[in-house]
């Protein structure tokens, strides 16, 4: 249950421990990739809660979303269109939707449990 959180922490520690730094030029594209990956994480949790989870969908979605978002942002820069804003917007909206769904689901479950306990 707590393994994903531990994984997040583990990744963060690795990231801050290694001396690699993203070149300043790519920071913008990286930000979109980060958003995409966060979106995947919450989407995955939501899928788990809704019992529609599929590991391969999550993994492929994670990598393609992050890569495509960064690529689109890069393309937008070449074309002089701020496409990365669109990516930020899309992923932001989805992130909040996923979070809201997770919250709804947890709340529903909690209330159900509470009622069951009252009935006993």
């Amino acid at each position: 249950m707590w393994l994903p959180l531990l994984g997040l922490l583990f990744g963060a520690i690795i990231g801050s421990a290694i001396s690699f730094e993203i070149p300043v030029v790519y920071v913008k594209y990286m930000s979109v990739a980060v958003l995409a990956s966060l979106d995947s994480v919450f989407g995955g949790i939501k899928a788990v809660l809704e019992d529609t989870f599929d590991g391969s969908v999550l993994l492929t979605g994670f990598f393609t979303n992050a890569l495509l978002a960064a690529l689109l942002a890069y393309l937008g820069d070449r074309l002089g269109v701020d496409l990365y804003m669109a990516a930020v917007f899309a992923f932001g909206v989805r992130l909040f939707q996923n979070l809201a769904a997770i919250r709804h689901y947890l709340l529903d479950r909690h209330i159900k449990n509470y009622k069951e306990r009252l009935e006993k």
Partner: protein
Amino acid sequence: MRKWILPITIVCIISGLLLSLQFKAQASLSPNPIGERNEALVSLINNLEQEIDQYQENLNNLRAELDKIENSTVSGQAEIEALQQEIQKARLQAGLLPLKGRGIKVVLDDNQAGLKAAPNDDPNRYIIHYENILNIITELKLGRTEAISINGQRLVTPSEIRCVGNVILVNTTRLAPPFEITAIGNPDILEEVLLYGEYDLLKSSGFPVSYTKHYSDNPVEIPAYSGTYQFKFTKINE
């Protein structure tokens, strides 16, 4: 183990990695690392300049002492007096004596009004560059000037006129605009070479430049060169 744990953990690890990397990149971005390094360099420069000042003072004191010794030994001996005159002449030629005389004073300043009027233009076109000063110096030399100083820095053989960022180095001293070039010579000839050269170019491109001619009733003053002459590699070829 439930089947969802592993994929989500993998995704979480990578997300954490990306997050911390991005975090690091942003953190190093905002407090401008170049600025920090610049500050370190500025303090280094300031320290070195202080050191230079100290050495300069030392040098000046030693020179004053030397002068005193040279003058005290004189007691009617014609030979020593002749030697002293020779020393004085050598010093004059080396630029180690403060001078005054007829001449010209040129003031060059950045074209700030022009830059304000065209803020999108390249600012390099509105500042005085070291090349401008070099050209004017060369033209003044063409006008047979005998001594030149820029903002109180006497030009001698080892003097450099060099661009370092937004200031100009002369005698390893940083000079900032307005640049006041003082030259001793025939004011009329100097004026003429000035008006047919770089000065005229600057004036016609809108730079706030000006010059004043000084005759013997109002002579210009030029300080002595306060640095040293070093001969590490030079040998007199006899």
